[in-house]
């Protein structure tokens, strides 16, 4: 039970890391290598607001979300749309977006270095024990797990109930057909990219309550997010959630019962096994 809850809490962390990228890659077809930097930037904002003005990270996110949404929308319109327009094939867009967002990640690391310096940053927020089912857990992890539940839930409902949400899902499944039924693919791709960026930044703000970050740590989160998204199946919110939770539980199981030294090895083994036996990911549609 203890293992399960710890694992689910870690899974919530992973969901926050990967959810934004899933939207960006699944719908906008941008494999965003600067995803981790956006997360660290969100963490920086929360840190800054908390140490400077004693403003709770859970309030900061309401300011952060619209700001990063606008920022990512601009990034998409200015930087990535030209690539989408010029790409003749899916493969070429993939290559171009890898190159461009790799450059973008460097730019963002450089900017954060200039603004905040290279020092580690962390702060103490809700670092209190909370007892669930007889075991103790960190309140900040539980709180950010609840944050993850709310974000993922809202996204899921929005994608399945609202008109733009359904159109976005249509694009994720079949971009060509979506265009035929009158969906404005370009506009919605920008929307999905911006939304993904905002989700990632909000996730970063929540994670910063218990993780120690610095300007250069983004790449760690990018790698993890890529693996979770691919494991779950591109363009499917459920897949990412399931993959994130599965990863959290497996890592905790291995750490508790086997050896904490093997947690990441176990995570990658799981990833590789899933890809070998279900190449399209847990919830992905078989490519036609």
């Amino acid at each position, binding site marked *: 039970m203890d293992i399960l809850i710890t694992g689910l809490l870690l899974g919530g962390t992973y969901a926050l890391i990967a959810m934004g990228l899933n939207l960006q890659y699944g719908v906008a077809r941008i494999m965003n290598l600067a995803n981790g930097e956006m997360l660290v930037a969100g963490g920086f904002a929360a840190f800054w607001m908390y140490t400077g003005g004693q403003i709770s990270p859970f309030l900061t996110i309401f300011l952060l979300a619209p700001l990063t949404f606008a920022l990512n929308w601009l990034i998409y319109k200015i930087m990535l749309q030209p690539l989408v327009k010029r790409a003749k094939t899916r493969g070429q867009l993939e*290559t171009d977006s890898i190159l461009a967002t790799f*450059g973008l990640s460097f730019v963002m690391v450089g900017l954060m270095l200039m603004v905040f310096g290279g020092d580690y940053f962390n702060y103490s927020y809700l670092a209190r024990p909370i007892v669930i089912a007889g075991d103790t857990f960190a309140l900040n992890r539980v709180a950010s797990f609840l944050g993850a539940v709310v974000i993922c839930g809202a996204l899921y409902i929005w994608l399945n109930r609202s008109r733009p949400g359904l159109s976005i899902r249509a694009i994720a499944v079949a971009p060509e057909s979506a265009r035929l039924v009158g969906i404005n693919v370009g506009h919605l791709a920008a929307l999905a990219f911006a939304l993904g960026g905002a989700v990632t930044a909000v996730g970063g703000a929540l994670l910063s309550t218990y993780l120690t970050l610095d300007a250069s740590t983004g790449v760690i989160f990018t790698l993890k997010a890529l693996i979770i998204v691919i494991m779950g199946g591109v363009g499917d919110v459920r897949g990412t959630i399931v993959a994130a939770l599965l990863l959290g539980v497996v890592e905790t199981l291995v750490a508790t019962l086997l050896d904490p030294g093997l947690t990441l090895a176990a995570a990658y083994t799981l990833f590789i096994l899933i890809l070998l036996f279900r190449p399209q990911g847990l919830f992905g549609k078989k490519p036609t």
Partner: protein
Amino acid sequence: MTGTDIRNLCLSALALGICALLPLSGSGYWLSIGVTIVMFTALATSWALFSGPTHYISLATAAFFGVGTYVTGLGFETLPFWSLVGIAAVLGAVLAALVGLATLRLSGVYFVIFTLGLAELVRQVITWVQNRSGQKGLYVLTDISEADIYWMLLALAGAVFLAGWLIGRSRLGFALRIIGDDETVAVHSGINTALSKVLLFMVPGSVAAMTGAILAPRYVYIEPSLAFAPMLSFQVVIMALLGGAGRLWGPLVGVIPFTLLWESISSSFPQQTTLLLGVAFLVIVYLLPRGFVGLLDQIRQRAAPKDPEAQA
């Protein structure tokens, strides 16, 4: 073998010979840049040998490279250095074959992320074993100089080019071109696509492992976080793509300007190195959509509009 072939071979040998003179110039600075260039040339060219025709983007370079450095780190006291490079080559090829057999049916982005995960997995396993065996830090203290390393890497790069040229002329190369154009057609013409791809994937695996083995004495101290740094995989991809993965010499024209650009930014703007590298990257991506090969083709096309080769 035609006359042009012989001429090209001679010219290449001559170029290689001239490059081999670099350490004699006595400038350690240019030698260290030379090592970087030759190292990335070997890595990016071998990478493009596989990825150019198959369009698979592999991020496994760091895995093979790290395995190579560990071969040297563990064995340099007991075995002669040349044999370590050989062992690394074999290990790299075997690992690549295993990975290839398991994964080449994955397509596109799945393969990309898989290879990334592989590099991390290998690193985690090696770290764990090192931890379990209580291995102290690996210090590779040898008499091998930077010039030796340069010459070895240069020989390796030369071998990669030769291999690439031979593959291009062989049945395998022909098969791969067909696979790259249309895999379904390839299957229908009786080509064993899986085998061809696995065979070819062993080339970058083996080359990256050898590069790691050769460079280990330069790093002196081997630890997993440096040997398996994922940045290396990305750098190789970026350089090869900037050059143009479709031609044998494509990565070379990516590596050289890229290394020099990297160097001049590092030296001129030490406070904003990362920021400006990123900006430079973006500029290149937007201004040179088809890499340096594309740029050169464009120039050639303008210079000689009737040259049929340039239009291909």
